[in-house]
Protein backbone atom coordinates (compact mmCIF):
# COMPACT_ATOMS: atom_id res chain seq x y z
CA UNK A 1 0.00 0.00 0.00
CA UNK A 2 1.75 3.15 -1.21
CA UNK A 3 2.02 6.01 1.30
CA UNK A 4 0.28 9.25 0.33
CA UNK A 5 3.03 11.89 0.62
CA UNK A 6 0.94 14.71 -0.82
CA UNK A 7 0.04 17.70 1.32
CA UNK A 8 -2.12 20.76 0.89
CA UNK A 9 -0.09 23.88 1.61
CA UNK A 10 -2.35 26.94 1.81
CA UNK A 11 -4.36 25.52 -1.09
CA UNK A 12 -1.35 24.48 -3.14
CA UNK A 13 -1.26 20.74 -3.81
CA UNK A 14 2.26 19.40 -3.20
CA UNK A 15 3.40 15.89 -4.16
CA UNK A 16 5.58 15.80 -1.07
CA UNK A 17 6.03 17.86 2.09
CA UNK A 18 9.73 18.17 1.25
CA UNK A 19 10.55 21.50 -0.36
CA UNK A 20 13.75 23.52 -0.73
CA UNK A 21 14.95 26.33 1.51
CA UNK A 22 15.50 29.64 -0.22
CA UNK A 23 19.13 30.34 -1.04
CA UNK A 24 20.12 26.71 -0.64
CA UNK A 25 18.94 25.45 -4.03
CA UNK A 26 19.53 28.42 -6.35
CA UNK A 27 16.67 28.02 -8.84
CA UNK A 28 17.03 24.26 -9.16
CA UNK A 29 18.96 24.02 -12.40
CA UNK A 30 22.26 22.91 -10.83
CA UNK A 31 20.62 20.33 -8.57
CA UNK A 32 18.53 18.96 -11.43
CA UNK A 33 21.74 17.22 -12.51
CA UNK A 34 21.43 15.12 -9.33
CA UNK A 35 17.73 14.65 -8.65
CA UNK A 36 14.30 14.60 -10.26
CA UNK A 37 12.82 17.97 -9.41
CA UNK A 38 9.34 16.52 -9.61
CA UNK A 39 10.13 14.08 -6.82
CA UNK A 40 9.93 16.95 -4.33
CA UNK A 41 7.08 19.17 -3.19
CA UNK A 42 8.14 22.58 -4.43
CA UNK A 43 11.18 24.67 -5.31
CA UNK A 44 11.59 27.78 -3.20
CA UNK A 45 14.09 29.88 -5.12
CA UNK A 46 16.82 32.22 -3.85
CA UNK A 47 15.39 35.51 -2.61
CA UNK A 48 15.12 38.03 -5.44
CA UNK A 49 15.17 41.81 -5.33
CA UNK A 50 14.03 44.57 -7.78
CA UNK A 51 17.54 45.23 -9.01
CA UNK A 52 20.41 42.72 -9.02
CA UNK A 53 22.29 42.70 -5.66
CA UNK A 54 26.05 42.10 -5.65
CA UNK A 55 26.08 40.63 -2.14
CA UNK A 56 28.86 40.97 0.42
CA UNK A 57 32.60 40.65 -0.02
CA UNK A 58 34.32 37.32 0.71
CA UNK A 59 34.89 35.33 2.86
CA UNK A 60 31.17 34.64 3.05
CA UNK A 61 31.18 31.32 4.89
CA UNK A 62 32.63 29.67 7.97
CA UNK A 63 32.10 26.17 9.22
CA UNK A 64 31.05 25.79 12.88
CA UNK A 65 30.23 22.76 15.07
CA UNK A 66 27.34 21.00 13.30
CA UNK A 67 26.63 24.15 11.37
CA UNK A 68 27.84 26.91 9.12
CA UNK A 69 27.74 30.68 9.17
CA UNK A 70 27.00 32.56 5.98
CA UNK A 71 27.03 36.21 5.00
CA UNK A 72 26.14 36.13 1.32
CA UNK A 73 24.26 39.42 1.41
CA UNK A 74 21.40 38.17 -0.75
CA UNK A 75 23.40 38.19 -3.98
CA UNK A 76 20.88 37.67 -6.77
CA UNK A 77 20.36 38.72 -10.39
CA UNK A 78 17.07 40.49 -9.77
CA UNK A 79 13.43 39.74 -10.52
CA UNK A 80 13.72 40.43 -14.27
CA UNK A 81 16.37 37.75 -14.64
CA UNK A 82 14.17 35.36 -12.66
CA UNK A 83 11.22 36.01 -14.98
CA UNK A 84 13.30 35.87 -18.16
CA UNK A 85 15.57 32.90 -17.37
CA UNK A 86 14.80 30.89 -14.23
CA UNK A 87 11.01 30.77 -14.20
CA UNK A 88 10.57 29.57 -17.81
CA UNK A 89 13.05 26.78 -17.13
CA UNK A 90 11.36 25.84 -13.84
CA UNK A 91 7.93 25.74 -15.48
CA UNK A 92 9.17 22.94 -17.75
CA UNK A 93 10.08 20.85 -14.68
CA UNK A 94 6.57 20.13 -13.44
CA UNK A 95 7.18 21.27 -9.86
CA UNK A 96 5.43 24.12 -8.02
CA UNK A 97 7.57 27.27 -7.81
CA UNK A 98 7.60 29.46 -4.72
CA UNK A 99 9.24 32.83 -5.30
CA UNK A 100 11.15 34.28 -2.35
CA UNK A 101 11.35 38.06 -2.40
CA UNK A 102 13.48 40.53 -0.46
CA UNK A 103 14.09 44.26 -0.20
CA UNK A 104 15.32 47.06 2.03
CA UNK A 105 12.12 49.13 1.96
CA UNK A 106 8.43 48.30 1.79
CA UNK A 107 8.48 49.94 -1.65
CA UNK A 108 11.10 47.50 -2.93
CA UNK A 109 9.05 44.53 -1.74
CA UNK A 110 5.98 45.92 -3.51
CA UNK A 111 7.88 46.42 -6.77
CA UNK A 112 9.07 42.80 -6.85
CA UNK A 113 5.60 41.56 -5.94
CA UNK A 114 4.07 43.64 -8.75
CA UNK A 115 6.39 42.16 -11.36
CA UNK A 116 5.60 38.64 -10.10
CA UNK A 117 1.84 39.21 -10.13
CA UNK A 118 1.92 39.71 -13.86
CA UNK A 119 3.89 36.47 -14.32
CA UNK A 120 2.27 33.08 -14.91
CA UNK A 121 3.19 30.05 -12.87
CA UNK A 122 4.36 31.31 -9.51
CA UNK A 123 2.46 29.13 -7.01
CA UNK A 124 3.19 31.24 -3.95
CA UNK A 125 5.39 34.02 -2.65
CA UNK A 126 7.67 33.75 0.37
CA UNK A 127 8.55 37.11 1.86
CA UNK A 128 12.06 37.14 3.33
CA UNK A 129 11.69 39.81 5.99
CA UNK A 130 15.08 39.01 7.51
CA UNK A 131 16.41 42.08 5.73
CA UNK A 132 17.72 45.33 7.20
CA UNK A 133 15.05 48.05 6.92
CA UNK A 134 16.73 51.18 5.55
CA UNK A 135 13.78 53.24 6.72
CA UNK A 136 14.26 52.10 10.33
CA UNK A 137 17.95 52.28 11.28
CA UNK A 138 18.64 48.97 9.54
CA UNK A 139 16.48 47.04 11.99
CA UNK A 140 15.34 43.77 10.46
CA UNK A 141 11.71 43.88 9.33
CA UNK A 142 11.30 40.46 10.96
CA UNK A 143 12.34 41.85 14.34
CA UNK A 144 9.39 44.19 14.67
CA UNK A 145 5.68 43.29 14.44
CA UNK A 146 4.74 46.64 12.87
CA UNK A 147 7.42 46.47 10.16
CA UNK A 148 6.48 42.85 9.53
CA UNK A 149 2.81 43.73 9.17
CA UNK A 150 3.49 46.61 6.78
CA UNK A 151 5.61 44.49 4.41
CA UNK A 152 3.31 41.48 4.48
CA UNK A 153 0.19 43.61 4.11
CA UNK A 154 1.62 45.45 1.11
CA UNK A 155 2.84 42.29 -0.65
CA UNK A 156 -0.37 40.43 0.02
CA UNK A 157 -2.43 43.25 -1.53
CA UNK A 158 -0.23 43.24 -4.65
CA UNK A 159 -0.51 39.55 -5.50
CA UNK A 160 -3.22 36.93 -5.94
CA UNK A 161 -1.24 33.85 -4.85
CA UNK A 162 -0.70 32.69 -1.25
CA UNK A 163 1.87 34.72 0.67
CA UNK A 164 4.25 33.13 3.22
CA UNK A 165 6.07 35.27 5.76
CA UNK A 166 9.59 33.95 6.47
CA UNK A 167 10.27 34.53 10.14
CA UNK A 168 13.53 35.15 11.97
CA UNK A 169 14.34 33.20 15.17
CA UNK A 170 16.37 36.15 16.47
CA UNK A 171 13.46 37.62 18.41
CA UNK A 172 12.20 37.54 21.98
CA UNK A 173 8.74 36.41 20.98
CA UNK A 174 8.34 34.78 17.55
CA UNK A 175 4.63 34.17 18.16
CA UNK A 176 4.02 37.92 18.34
CA UNK A 177 5.68 38.38 14.92
CA UNK A 178 3.79 35.40 13.48
CA UNK A 179 0.49 36.86 14.65
CA UNK A 180 1.34 40.26 13.17
CA UNK A 181 2.13 38.62 9.83
CA UNK A 182 -1.08 36.59 9.80
CA UNK A 183 -3.24 39.56 10.80
CA UNK A 184 -1.61 41.49 7.95
CA UNK A 185 -2.80 38.78 5.55
CA UNK A 186 -0.07 36.14 5.39
CA UNK A 187 -1.60 32.84 4.27
CA UNK A 188 1.26 30.85 5.74
CA UNK A 189 4.54 31.10 7.63
CA UNK A 190 8.05 29.85 6.87
CA UNK A 191 10.38 29.32 9.82
CA UNK A 192 13.13 29.53 10.74
CA UNK A 193 15.62 31.72 8.96
CA UNK A 194 19.23 31.55 10.14
CA UNK A 195 20.33 32.39 13.68
CA UNK A 196 22.67 35.39 13.82
CA UNK A 197 26.16 34.35 14.86
CA UNK A 198 29.83 35.16 14.50
CA UNK A 199 33.21 33.44 14.42
CA UNK A 200 36.79 34.70 14.76
CA UNK A 201 40.00 33.36 13.27
CA UNK A 202 42.11 33.66 16.42
CA UNK A 203 45.41 33.56 14.51
CA UNK A 204 44.55 36.70 12.57
CA UNK A 205 42.07 38.12 15.11
CA UNK A 206 39.76 38.77 12.17
CA UNK A 207 36.12 37.78 11.84
CA UNK A 208 35.85 34.68 9.64
CA UNK A 209 33.19 36.49 7.61
CA UNK A 210 33.85 39.73 5.74
CA UNK A 211 30.31 40.65 6.78
CA UNK A 212 31.39 40.12 10.42
CA UNK A 213 28.00 38.74 11.46
CA UNK A 214 26.45 35.81 9.66
CA UNK A 215 23.55 33.42 9.67
CA UNK A 216 23.95 30.09 11.44
CA UNK A 217 22.34 27.10 9.72
CA UNK A 218 22.60 23.33 9.84
CA UNK A 219 21.93 20.69 12.51
CA UNK A 220 23.21 22.96 15.28
CA UNK A 221 20.03 25.05 15.06
CA UNK A 222 17.49 22.23 14.73
CA UNK A 223 16.35 22.38 18.39
CA UNK A 224 15.74 26.12 17.91
CA UNK A 225 13.66 25.42 14.79
CA UNK A 226 11.62 22.69 16.48
CA UNK A 227 10.80 25.03 19.35
CA UNK A 228 9.83 27.87 16.98
CA UNK A 229 7.51 25.70 14.86
CA UNK A 230 6.03 24.17 18.01
CA UNK A 231 5.19 27.51 19.61
CA UNK A 232 3.89 29.17 16.44
CA UNK A 233 1.71 26.16 15.59
CA UNK A 234 0.25 26.11 19.12
CA UNK A 235 -0.65 29.77 18.85
CA UNK A 236 -1.91 29.61 15.25
CA UNK A 237 -3.01 26.00 14.63
CA UNK A 238 -4.87 26.90 11.43
CA UNK A 239 -1.93 28.58 9.70
CA UNK A 240 0.13 26.37 7.36
CA UNK A 241 3.84 26.31 8.24
CA UNK A 242 6.88 25.51 6.13
CA UNK A 243 9.27 24.31 8.82
CA UNK A 244 13.03 24.36 8.41
CA UNK A 245 16.30 24.52 10.27
CA UNK A 246 18.97 21.85 10.33
CA UNK A 247 17.01 19.09 8.67
CA UNK A 248 19.49 16.46 7.47
CA UNK A 249 17.41 13.27 7.59
CA UNK A 250 13.81 12.08 7.31
CA UNK A 251 13.71 11.77 11.11
CA UNK A 252 14.51 15.47 11.41
CA UNK A 253 11.76 16.31 8.92
CA UNK A 254 9.25 14.14 10.79
CA UNK A 255 10.17 15.95 14.01
CA UNK A 256 9.18 19.28 12.46
CA UNK A 257 5.95 17.84 11.05
CA UNK A 258 5.03 16.40 14.46
CA UNK A 259 5.28 19.85 16.03
CA UNK A 260 3.09 21.38 13.35
CA UNK A 261 4.85 21.90 10.02
CA UNK A 262 2.81 21.13 6.89
CA UNK A 263 5.90 21.16 4.66
CA UNK A 264 9.60 20.92 5.52
CA UNK A 265 12.30 22.87 3.71
CA UNK A 266 15.81 21.48 3.23
CA UNK A 267 18.61 24.01 3.19
CA UNK A 268 22.20 23.40 4.21
CA UNK A 269 21.77 19.63 3.74
CA UNK A 270 21.78 20.22 -0.04
CA UNK A 271 25.34 21.51 0.17
CA UNK A 272 26.61 18.29 1.70
CA UNK A 273 24.33 15.95 -0.21
CA UNK A 274 22.87 17.25 -3.48
CA UNK A 275 20.36 14.40 -3.37
CA UNK A 276 19.18 15.30 0.15
CA UNK A 277 15.66 16.43 -0.77
CA UNK A 278 14.88 13.38 -2.89
CA UNK A 279 16.41 10.93 -0.42
CA UNK A 280 14.64 12.47 2.58
CA UNK A 281 11.35 12.22 0.68
CA UNK A 282 11.94 8.54 -0.13
CA UNK A 283 13.07 7.64 3.38
CA UNK A 284 10.14 9.46 4.97
CA UNK A 285 7.75 7.51 2.79
CA UNK A 286 9.49 4.25 3.78
CA UNK A 287 9.39 5.23 7.47
CA UNK A 288 5.64 5.85 7.28
CA UNK A 289 5.05 2.64 5.35
CA UNK A 290 7.03 0.55 7.84
CA UNK A 291 4.70 1.86 10.58
CA UNK A 292 1.54 1.21 8.61
CA UNK A 293 0.83 4.92 8.23
CA UNK A 294 -0.90 5.72 4.96
CA UNK A 295 -0.43 9.44 4.67
CA UNK A 296 2.16 11.91 5.88
CA UNK A 297 -0.50 14.46 6.76
CA UNK A 298 -1.59 12.16 9.59
CA UNK A 299 1.62 13.06 11.45
CA UNK A 300 1.04 16.80 11.44
CA UNK A 301 1.07 18.31 14.92
CA UNK A 302 0.81 14.86 16.51
CA UNK A 303 3.32 15.57 19.31
CA UNK A 304 1.88 14.25 22.60
CA UNK A 305 2.26 16.52 25.59
CA UNK A 306 -0.03 14.97 28.18
CA UNK A 307 0.02 11.52 29.80
Amino acid at each position, binding site marked *: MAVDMSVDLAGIKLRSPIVTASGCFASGREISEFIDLNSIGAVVVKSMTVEPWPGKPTPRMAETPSGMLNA*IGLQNKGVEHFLAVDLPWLLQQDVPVIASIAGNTVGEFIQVADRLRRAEGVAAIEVNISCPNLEDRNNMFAHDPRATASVIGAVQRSVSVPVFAKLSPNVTNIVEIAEAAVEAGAHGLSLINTVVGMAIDIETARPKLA*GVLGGLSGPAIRPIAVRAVFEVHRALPQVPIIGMGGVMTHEDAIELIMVGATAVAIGTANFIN*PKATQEINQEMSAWLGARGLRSVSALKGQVKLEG
Partner: protein
Amino acid sequence: MIQQTAEILSHRKLGDEYHLLSIVAPEIAEAAKPGQFVNLRPAADKHFILRRPFSIYRVNRRGDWAATIEVVFDVRGGGTAALAALRPHDLIDVVGPIGRPFTMPTRQKSCLLVGGGVGAVPLFFLAEELRAIDKRVDTLWGAATASRLVNSIDAKRLGAMAMFTTEDGSEGTRGFVTDVLPEMISKCGTEVIYACGPNAMLAAVTAVGTRHRIPVQVAMEALMGCGIGICMTCVQPVWNKEGTEVMHVRTCVDGPIFNGARISWDAYAPKVHARPVPAGN
Protein backbone atom coordinates in the same frame (compact mmCIF):
# COMPACT_ATOMS: atom_id res chain seq x y z
CA MET B 1 28.54 16.48 -12.31
CA ILE B 2 27.68 13.23 -10.61
CA GLN B 3 27.69 12.12 -7.00
CA GLN B 4 28.88 8.65 -6.09
CA THR B 5 30.30 6.63 -3.24
CA ALA B 6 33.72 5.58 -4.46
CA GLU B 7 36.39 3.18 -3.23
CA ILE B 8 39.91 4.23 -2.30
CA LEU B 9 42.29 2.25 -4.50
CA SER B 10 45.50 3.51 -2.89
CA HIS B 11 46.86 6.13 -0.57
CA ARG B 12 50.54 7.08 -0.54
CA LYS B 13 52.72 9.95 0.58
CA LEU B 14 54.09 12.18 -2.19
CA GLY B 15 57.25 13.65 -0.68
CA ASP B 16 57.21 14.64 2.98
CA GLU B 17 54.22 16.94 2.87
CA TYR B 18 51.64 15.63 0.45
CA HIS B 19 49.18 12.73 0.31
CA LEU B 20 48.09 11.13 -2.96
CA LEU B 21 44.68 9.45 -2.96
CA SER B 22 43.68 7.29 -5.89
CA ILE B 23 39.91 6.90 -6.09
CA VAL B 24 37.97 4.45 -8.27
CA ALA B 25 35.41 6.63 -10.06
CA PRO B 26 35.04 5.58 -13.72
CA GLU B 27 32.36 8.06 -14.80
CA ILE B 28 34.11 10.99 -13.19
CA ALA B 29 37.47 9.92 -14.65
CA GLU B 30 35.83 9.59 -18.06
CA ALA B 31 34.33 13.07 -18.00
CA ALA B 32 37.15 14.91 -16.20
CA LYS B 33 39.09 17.68 -17.95
CA PRO B 34 42.22 19.53 -16.71
CA GLY B 35 41.44 22.30 -14.20
CA GLN B 36 38.29 20.67 -12.93
CA PHE B 37 37.98 19.52 -9.33
CA VAL B 38 36.11 17.04 -7.17
CA ASN B 39 34.29 17.81 -3.91
CA LEU B 40 35.00 15.16 -1.29
CA ARG B 41 33.06 14.42 1.87
CA PRO B 42 35.79 13.71 4.43
CA ALA B 43 33.56 11.55 6.64
CA ALA B 44 29.89 10.66 6.85
CA ASP B 45 30.01 12.36 10.25
CA LYS B 46 26.42 12.64 11.45
CA HIS B 47 27.36 15.95 13.03
CA PHE B 48 28.24 17.00 9.46
CA ILE B 49 31.23 18.61 7.98
CA LEU B 50 31.15 20.41 4.65
CA ARG B 51 32.71 18.86 1.58
CA ARG B 52 36.29 19.77 0.67
CA PRO B 53 37.26 20.67 -2.89
CA PHE B 54 40.39 19.21 -4.51
CA SER B 55 41.83 19.65 -7.99
CA ILE B 56 42.10 16.56 -10.14
CA TYR B 57 45.82 15.69 -10.19
CA ARG B 58 45.65 12.92 -12.74
CA VAL B 59 43.11 10.53 -14.20
CA ASN B 60 43.88 6.95 -15.05
CA ARG B 61 41.45 5.70 -17.69
CA ARG B 62 43.16 2.36 -18.25
CA GLY B 63 40.64 -0.42 -17.51
CA ASP B 64 37.30 1.36 -17.77
CA TRP B 65 35.45 -0.11 -14.75
CA ALA B 66 38.53 0.54 -12.65
CA ALA B 67 39.30 4.03 -13.97
CA THR B 68 40.58 6.29 -11.20
CA ILE B 69 41.00 9.95 -10.37
CA GLU B 70 43.87 11.13 -8.21
CA VAL B 71 43.96 14.00 -5.74
CA VAL B 72 46.96 15.42 -3.90
CA PHE B 73 46.67 17.35 -0.67
CA ASP B 74 48.43 18.37 2.51
CA VAL B 75 46.85 18.26 5.94
CA ARG B 76 45.55 21.67 6.98
CA GLY B 77 42.68 21.01 9.33
CA GLY B 78 39.95 18.57 10.24
CA GLY B 79 38.84 17.72 6.72
CA THR B 80 42.22 16.96 5.24
CA ALA B 81 43.18 15.13 8.44
CA ALA B 82 40.16 12.84 7.93
CA LEU B 83 41.16 12.27 4.29
CA ALA B 84 44.72 11.51 5.37
CA ALA B 85 43.31 8.67 7.51
CA LEU B 86 41.65 6.89 4.57
CA ARG B 87 42.91 3.42 3.71
CA PRO B 88 42.55 1.28 0.55
CA HIS B 89 38.99 -0.13 0.23
CA ASP B 90 37.55 2.66 2.42
CA LEU B 91 34.62 4.41 0.76
CA ILE B 92 34.32 8.12 0.11
CA ASP B 93 31.49 10.27 -1.20
CA VAL B 94 32.63 12.19 -4.29
CA VAL B 95 30.97 14.87 -6.40
CA GLY B 96 32.60 15.70 -9.72
CA PRO B 97 33.95 16.58 -12.12
CA ILE B 98 33.17 20.20 -11.27
CA GLY B 99 33.82 23.51 -12.99
CA ARG B 100 35.02 25.06 -16.21
CA PRO B 101 38.28 23.39 -17.29
CA PHE B 102 41.33 25.11 -18.75
CA THR B 103 40.67 26.13 -22.35
CA MET B 104 42.93 24.23 -24.74
CA PRO B 105 44.85 26.49 -27.13
CA THR B 106 43.88 26.36 -30.78
CA ARG B 107 46.37 28.53 -32.69
CA GLN B 108 48.97 28.89 -29.95
CA LYS B 109 51.66 26.21 -29.87
CA SER B 110 53.85 27.14 -26.89
CA CYS B 111 52.33 26.83 -23.41
CA LEU B 112 53.91 27.79 -20.09
CA LEU B 113 52.52 26.21 -16.91
CA VAL B 114 53.19 28.11 -13.68
CA GLY B 115 52.43 26.41 -10.36
CA GLY B 116 52.83 27.73 -6.83
CA GLY B 117 52.99 25.27 -3.93
CA VAL B 118 50.08 22.86 -3.86
CA GLY B 119 48.67 24.94 -6.72
CA ALA B 120 50.84 22.80 -8.97
CA VAL B 121 48.39 19.93 -8.69
CA PRO B 122 46.03 20.57 -11.65
CA LEU B 123 48.95 21.36 -13.98
CA PHE B 124 50.09 17.72 -14.17
CA PHE B 125 46.83 16.65 -15.82
CA LEU B 126 46.90 19.75 -18.02
CA ALA B 127 50.47 19.08 -19.22
CA GLU B 128 49.58 15.55 -20.31
CA GLU B 129 46.56 16.74 -22.29
CA LEU B 130 48.47 19.58 -23.94
CA ARG B 131 51.23 17.23 -25.06
CA ALA B 132 48.60 14.79 -26.33
CA ILE B 133 47.60 17.51 -28.81
CA ASP B 134 51.25 18.26 -29.67
CA LYS B 135 51.69 21.53 -27.84
CA ARG B 136 55.03 22.68 -26.52
CA VAL B 137 54.85 22.60 -22.73
CA ASP B 138 57.26 24.37 -20.41
CA THR B 139 56.86 24.45 -16.67
CA LEU B 140 57.79 26.84 -13.86
CA TRP B 141 57.30 25.69 -10.27
CA GLY B 142 57.56 27.83 -7.17
CA ALA B 143 57.23 27.17 -3.47
CA ALA B 144 58.35 28.48 -0.08
CA THR B 145 60.82 25.61 0.23
CA ALA B 146 61.79 22.42 -1.64
CA SER B 147 59.49 20.16 0.39
CA ARG B 148 56.47 22.25 -0.65
CA LEU B 149 57.07 21.49 -4.34
CA VAL B 150 54.63 18.84 -5.57
CA ASN B 151 56.38 15.75 -7.04
CA SER B 152 59.37 17.67 -8.43
CA ILE B 153 60.77 14.52 -10.03
CA ASP B 154 57.79 14.12 -12.37
CA ALA B 155 57.45 17.88 -12.60
CA LYS B 156 60.88 18.09 -14.29
CA ARG B 157 59.79 15.66 -16.99
CA LEU B 158 56.42 17.18 -17.75
CA GLY B 159 57.66 19.59 -20.40
CA ALA B 160 60.48 20.71 -22.65
CA MET B 161 61.90 23.08 -20.09
CA ALA B 162 61.33 23.06 -16.32
CA MET B 163 62.42 25.70 -13.82
CA PHE B 164 62.04 25.86 -10.05
CA THR B 165 62.08 28.73 -7.58
CA THR B 166 61.98 28.53 -3.79
CA GLU B 167 61.84 31.43 -1.39
CA ASP B 168 64.65 29.94 0.70
CA GLY B 169 66.71 28.78 -2.27
CA SER B 170 66.53 25.14 -1.12
CA GLU B 171 65.77 24.14 -4.72
CA GLY B 172 66.22 26.01 -8.02
CA THR B 173 66.46 29.78 -8.08
CA ARG B 174 65.98 31.67 -4.80
CA GLY B 175 62.92 33.93 -5.08
CA PHE B 176 59.52 33.95 -6.71
CA VAL B 177 58.29 32.50 -9.99
CA THR B 178 57.81 36.00 -11.32
CA ASP B 179 61.56 36.64 -10.96
CA VAL B 180 62.30 34.12 -13.73
CA LEU B 181 59.00 34.28 -15.61
CA PRO B 182 59.99 37.00 -18.16
CA GLU B 183 63.21 35.14 -18.99
CA MET B 184 61.30 31.87 -19.49
CA ILE B 185 58.72 33.53 -21.68
CA SER B 186 61.38 34.78 -24.09
CA LYS B 187 63.43 31.54 -23.96
CA CYS B 188 60.37 29.38 -24.65
CA GLY B 189 58.52 31.70 -26.98
CA THR B 190 55.50 31.32 -24.72
CA GLU B 191 52.15 32.11 -26.33
CA VAL B 192 49.80 31.16 -23.51
CA ILE B 193 50.22 30.88 -19.73
CA TYR B 194 48.35 28.56 -17.33
CA ALA B 195 48.80 29.43 -13.66
CA CYS B 196 47.63 28.01 -10.36
CA GLY B 197 48.68 29.04 -6.85
CA PRO B 198 48.16 31.73 -4.22
CA ASN B 199 46.23 34.84 -5.30
CA ALA B 200 49.28 37.08 -4.93
CA MET B 201 51.22 34.87 -7.37
CA LEU B 202 48.32 34.69 -9.84
CA ALA B 203 48.00 38.48 -9.78
CA ALA B 204 51.74 38.91 -10.44
CA VAL B 205 51.81 36.28 -13.21
CA THR B 206 48.78 37.91 -14.84
CA ALA B 207 50.55 41.29 -14.73
CA VAL B 208 53.66 39.86 -16.46
CA GLY B 209 51.50 38.05 -19.01
CA THR B 210 49.57 41.19 -19.79
CA ARG B 211 52.81 43.17 -20.26
CA HIS B 212 53.95 40.53 -22.78
CA ARG B 213 50.47 40.44 -24.39
CA ILE B 214 50.14 36.76 -23.46
CA PRO B 215 46.75 35.42 -22.30
CA VAL B 216 46.87 34.01 -18.76
CA GLN B 217 44.40 31.40 -17.51
CA VAL B 218 44.32 31.18 -13.71
CA ALA B 219 42.86 28.49 -11.45
CA MET B 220 41.33 30.19 -8.38
CA GLU B 221 40.61 28.90 -4.89
CA ALA B 222 37.73 29.98 -2.66
CA LEU B 223 35.92 28.82 0.42
CA MET B 224 33.14 26.61 -0.86
CA GLY B 225 29.90 25.87 0.88
CA CYS B 226 28.45 23.55 -1.74
CA GLY B 227 30.80 23.24 -4.72
CA ILE B 228 27.85 22.85 -7.08
CA GLY B 229 26.73 26.41 -7.64
CA ILE B 230 23.82 26.78 -5.24
CA CYS B 231 25.12 28.71 -2.20
CA MET B 232 27.05 31.74 -3.53
CA THR B 233 29.83 31.52 -0.96
CA CYS B 234 32.68 31.07 -3.44
CA VAL B 235 32.46 34.18 -5.59
CA GLN B 236 35.38 36.02 -7.17
CA PRO B 237 35.34 39.70 -8.18
CA VAL B 238 35.37 39.54 -11.98
CA TRP B 239 35.16 42.42 -14.48
CA ASN B 240 32.30 42.14 -16.93
CA LYS B 241 33.15 41.89 -20.64
CA GLU B 242 32.80 45.63 -21.10
CA GLY B 243 35.18 46.20 -18.18
CA THR B 244 32.65 48.62 -16.74
CA GLU B 245 31.63 46.67 -13.63
CA VAL B 246 32.93 44.05 -11.19
CA MET B 247 30.58 41.09 -10.81
CA HIS B 248 30.63 38.40 -8.11
CA VAL B 249 31.09 35.18 -10.08
CA ARG B 250 30.95 31.68 -8.58
CA THR B 251 34.31 29.93 -8.47
CA CYS B 252 32.88 26.43 -8.33
CA VAL B 253 30.80 26.23 -11.49
CA ASP B 254 31.70 29.42 -13.40
CA GLY B 255 35.37 28.85 -12.50
CA PRO B 256 37.68 27.68 -11.07
CA ILE B 257 39.50 28.62 -14.28
CA PHE B 258 39.28 32.31 -15.13
CA ASN B 259 40.90 34.68 -17.58
CA GLY B 260 43.48 36.36 -15.31
CA ALA B 261 42.92 39.71 -16.98
CA ARG B 262 39.26 39.65 -15.93
CA ILE B 263 39.90 39.18 -12.18
CA SER B 264 39.68 42.38 -10.13
CA TRP B 265 42.85 41.61 -8.15
CA ASP B 266 42.77 44.74 -6.01
CA ALA B 267 39.34 43.74 -4.69
CA TYR B 268 41.21 41.27 -2.47
CA ALA B 269 42.40 43.94 -0.05
CA PRO B 270 40.50 42.72 3.03
CA LYS B 271 37.13 44.45 3.22
CA VAL B 272 35.15 44.34 6.44
CA HIS B 273 32.03 46.31 7.19
CA ALA B 274 32.76 48.94 9.82
CA ARG B 275 29.22 48.86 11.24
CA PRO B 276 28.07 45.24 11.08
CA VAL B 277 24.35 44.80 10.58
CA PRO B 278 22.70 41.40 10.95
CA ALA B 279 23.43 39.61 7.70
CA GLY B 280 20.70 38.88 5.20
CA ASN B 281 21.91 35.44 4.15
